[in-house]
């Protein structure tokens, strides 16, 4: 197996509607990553596209449509997909292109254009449900997460204000992120608790917004990485795991699939005690409770302990275990697959000391990024470390 380094990253503005087409967004993110690395199109061997449902962009086989914007014309190109998990899964696919020795340099592009689905991407979300068992009940996507959140709160007796602290932290962390859609330096716990109830226990400010956006990342074989950088960031380990489709046949209290994926990645990265050995994490936070749920799944704390750590300030940017220093999905926005920008790209920027105003104090050496997708069943995990 080849060692794999990350040598460049880029991402676009995240907004509800952007004027650029999906191709153009991919181009902007890709061009930025290429300029960051100082690399030309010809030097890229292969390209991986990560993009979530076709039903958002409104283009069947949308991977094919995005080829020219992803510097992939005339190159081996493949799109991988597992719902919301794509944001970390696409870089995992990029990693295996290089780790297997098939490519020396692999570009990963993630793109999402949710605004195309009009008037609201909610229409496309209707079709993620089982057509026979769920769709006749006319469900709203928020229900799913409200049910999981309620189950989680009930099992560990968690108060809503402890969950709201996550939204406050992330929206404040996003201040200073030039791409951020919902950064707010003055938000308080009360603002979250007083926001409109959508499907109890989920309220307006518990939720990340739908967005348009794109992100890009460049992987390189360790043997030639010296050509591009003196201070490469390496992939320590990757993991992914899926649980049953039948979400009503599972206990929603603990995300066992996240734990499985994390264990797979940690084993390869040689991490025995994740809570101690990992310096910061970017778990997937489309809803504020998901950050807590995923911290537990990533084995960064005991079951039910994440809200306590959050309350005590451990997860703040200057805390002992910074969580979502980018501002996460809650602060920066949630263009499903393009959240690679806050998850894996952010790990790279933090570890390379390029995070600017968002830089974690101290000297972070190991970070873990995670995404979550499908119908509350898919986990994708990537560990990055300094060389």
């Amino acid at each position, binding site marked *: 197996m080849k060692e794999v380094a990350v040598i460049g990253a880029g991402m676009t503005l995240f907004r509800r*509607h*952007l*004027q*650029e*087409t999906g*191709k*153009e967004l991919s*181009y902007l993110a*890709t*061009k930025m990553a*290429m300029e960051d690395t100082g690399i*030309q*199109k010809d030097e890229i061997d292969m390209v991986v596209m990560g993009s979530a449902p076709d*039903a958002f962009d*409104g283009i069947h086989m949308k991977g094919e449509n995005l080829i*020219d*914007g992803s*510097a992939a*014309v*005339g190159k081996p190109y493949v799109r991988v997909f597992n719902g919301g998990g794509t944001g970390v899964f696409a870089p995992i696919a990029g990693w295996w292109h290089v780790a297997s020795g098939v490519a020396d340099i692999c570009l990963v592009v993630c793109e999402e254009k949710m*605004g*195309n*689905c*009009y*008037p609201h991407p909610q*229409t*496309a979300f209707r*079709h993620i449900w089982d*057509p*026979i068992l769920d*769709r006749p009940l006319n469900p709203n996507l928020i229900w799913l997460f409200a049910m999981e959140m309620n189950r989680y709160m009930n099992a560990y007796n968690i108060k809503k204000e402890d969950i709201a602290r996550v939204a406050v932290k992330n929206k404040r962390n996003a201040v200073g992120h030039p791409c951020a859609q919902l950064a707010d330096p003055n938000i308080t716990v009360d603002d979250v608790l007083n926001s409109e109830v959508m499907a109890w226990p989920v309220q307006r400010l518990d939720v990340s917004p739908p967005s348009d956006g794109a992100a890009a990342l460049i992987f390189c074989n360790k043997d030639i990485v010296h050509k591009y950088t003196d201070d490469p960031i390496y992939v320590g380990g990757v993991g992914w795991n899926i649980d049953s489709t039948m979400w009503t046949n599972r206990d929603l209290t603990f995300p066992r699939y996240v734990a499985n994926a994390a264990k797979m990645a940690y084993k390869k990265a040689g991490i025995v005690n994740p809570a101690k050995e990992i310096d910061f994490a970017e778990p997937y936070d489309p809803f504020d409770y998901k950050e807590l749920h995923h911290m537990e799944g990533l084995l960064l704390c005991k079951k039910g302990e994440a809200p306590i750590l959050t309350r005590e300030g451990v997860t703040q940017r200057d805390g002992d275990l910074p969580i979502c220093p980018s501002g996460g999905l809650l602060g920066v926005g949630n263009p499903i697959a393009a959240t690679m920008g806050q998850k894996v790209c952010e790990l790279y920027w933090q570890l390379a000391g390029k995070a600017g105003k968002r830089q974690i104090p101290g000297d972070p050496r190991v970070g873990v990024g995670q995404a979550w997708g499908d119908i509350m069943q898919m986990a994708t995990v990537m560990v990055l470390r300094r060389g």
Partner: protein
Amino acid sequence: MTFGQKQTDPTSPMHWRGDMQADYMYPNGVAGDKFFKHLMQRDTFLATKCDKCKKVLFPPRMYCEDCFEEILESNWIEVPSTGTVRLFTIATLNAHGEKMQEPKIVALIDIDQTNGALLGIIRSNDITKDFSGKKVKAILRPKDNREGTLKDILYFEEI
């Protein structure tokens, strides 16, 4: 036998209907917006020229797909809305696979002064004609009716 039991009663429920209906609003993009806003005012097309490979890209782009270089404002050029038929076919089926009310001539038209092309419908009295290599021009909607989409080009006809 893969399963313990198979469906043997043809009178039992067999199918479940469903859809993935949704409506889509595609912004025309940065390059597309410029192209269509021009087309709303004028009867000509815009194309873009790549500085590196010197190709005149049509439909216009914000970047060159081969060189991956950005196309600058100064490299937008105006080209006539005429072209030469590269390929054509006579389509007889509609999307449902049924016979269309009347067959349509669909053509790939090389736009003059560019290295690009555009799909278009050719209207002609003679459907049996060989259109390959024929010069055609775009027939546009009246200016006050144009909306800034490809539908502003009604059809192409032979010059």
